[in-house]
């Protein structure tokens, strides 16, 4: 065999090995979130858009799925549950009662859907949000049974308009900025933004730059505790977030994929914290 042919075969063999290595090794995807018991003395927060994708009676949570939601929330055993796309305040109350007699709840019901908060082990105080443009968030002062109080804003940002959700996210963060608030702050909910290295480079809209700007605005003030733990919604999208102030030390966070409830397209996002000061 000619020496030149041997050289070419050698190069191709080397290329094959490298390509097999490159394409064959498993993709290093996001770290998977391994759900565990809530940290002792810590704080577990769950945010969940319980609306159904294409549910027969609208986008809000269907009544037939309420028992499954209750069962899941019992299993997750959170201190603070923040739900979006509820049908109304009464539906939230039914869920609260199903979880226990002492479960406190608050809701805001003046948008296209109802946003609710449930606190099996905390006291809740709803705060006013003043003048608002777009979908109004639920603003809360939360006093957990253990540890200091925290301010929480729950938002379900506009699903279709990047411009609107950008404003809503900005305004929601502005609620948490004043220095008079407690240092521990959370901004949670279905923010409807999906950014990252594998962005879609959509040729037809400028949604991505706007969403990126919104995400960056949040990321400069708060810590995205669920980052790198994979998608929170189907198909393969990360739309649900828990942004926390540095005073809250995340132990673990990520979407809980244990069970699909009906035709819902979001998973519950679980975040466990301890206070940075070890309180």
């Amino acid at each position, binding site marked *: 065999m000619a020496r030149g042919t041997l050289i070419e075969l050698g190069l*191709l063999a080397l290329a094959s090995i490298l*390509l097999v*290595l490159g*394409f064959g090794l498993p993709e290093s995807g996001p770290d998977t979130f391994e759900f565990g018991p809530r940290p002792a003395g810590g704080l577990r927060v769950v945010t969940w858009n319980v609306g159904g994708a294409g549910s027969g009676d609208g986008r809000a949570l269907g009544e037939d799925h309420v028992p499954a939601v209750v069962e899941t929330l019992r299993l997750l055993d959170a201190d603070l549950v923040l739900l979006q796309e509820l049908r109304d305040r009464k539906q939230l109350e039914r869920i609260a009662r199903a979880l226990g007699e002492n479960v406190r709840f608050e809701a805001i019901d003046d948008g296209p859907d109802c946003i609710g908060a449930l606190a099996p082990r905390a006291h809740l105080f709803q705060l006013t949000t003043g003048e608002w443009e777009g979908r109004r968030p639920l603003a809360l002062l939360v006093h957990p049974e253990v540890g200091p109080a925290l301010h929480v804003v729950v938002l379900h940002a506009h699903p279709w308009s990047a411009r609107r959700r950008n*404003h809503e996210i900005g305004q929601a963060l502005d609620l948490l900025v004043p220095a008079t608030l407690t240092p521990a702050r959370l901004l949670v909910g279905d923010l409807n933004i999906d950014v990252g*290295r594998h962005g879609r480079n959509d040729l037809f809209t400028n949604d991505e730059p706007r969403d990126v*700007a919104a995400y*960056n*605005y949040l990321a400069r003030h708060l810590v*995205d505790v669920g980052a790198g733990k994979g998608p929170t919604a189907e198909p393969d999208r990360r739309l649900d977030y828990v942004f926390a102030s540095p005073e809250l030390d995340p132990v673990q966070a990520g979407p809980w994929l244990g069970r699909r409830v009906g035709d819902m397209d979001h998973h519950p996002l679980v975040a466990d914290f301890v206070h940075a000061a070890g309180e």
Partner: protein
Amino acid sequence: MLAALSSALFLTLMLVGFYTYARNHTRGAFDFGYTFENESYFNGLTFTVYSFYFGFLLVLPIFVATEGSAQIAGETSDRTLGLLLIRPITKSRLFFTKVAVSAGYAVCLAGGFLVLSLGVGLFAVGWGDLDLYPGVLQMTDRHQHLSQSQALLRFALIWPAASLGLWTTLAFAFLLSAWMKSAVNAAAVSISLYLVMHVVSGVHFFEELRPILFTSYLAYWRGLLQEDVPWTQVGRDAAKLLGFAFVFLALAHRRFRLREEL
């Protein structure tokens, strides 16, 4: 020389763009209240990331493709290849000597451009830590913070990593150079095909096609700017790029070895 001048011009334009962008987006001239990048976040290291990213994907490949095309097609059209082939040197040796020289050129080009970007960035824009956010450059999935010294070390790693990316483009140019008789045609076709593949790699509705295009992996060195470098991913992409390069070189070598020098 031309490469150095073009790089300097490119960096000047980047500097102008950088400042006008920062001014427009931070002084209230922009009506989009929550779009937010400010001057404290922009510094010399951010400038280097931006300019090197665009330079690496759009400027350096042009010079590398031109260099690769000139090596065989240029000598063919100038008929100086005949001068080399009447010496006791095999075509394989000639081919790999040219590959080695061009690969060295790519390393110098990447290093020179990086140093120039850093120099312009640090002295004209300013020193500081490197903060990266998810964005249209898709550098990162989440906010990354690197201290200045950490960032400079990462840039030192980016140099060989980016050179490897340029080698694949170079090998592609060699392949066309071995097939074509004119250096101008070979360079034009190399650059055109590179740009087409670059665009296809970046548009989401070509996602079925992306994995088989080497241009999809060229900016793999972005991983080196993460706080925790995803070494497996960086290694995978580097392996793919080298694999593509060896395939191109094998085909180019075969063509060059067997073709007739009319």
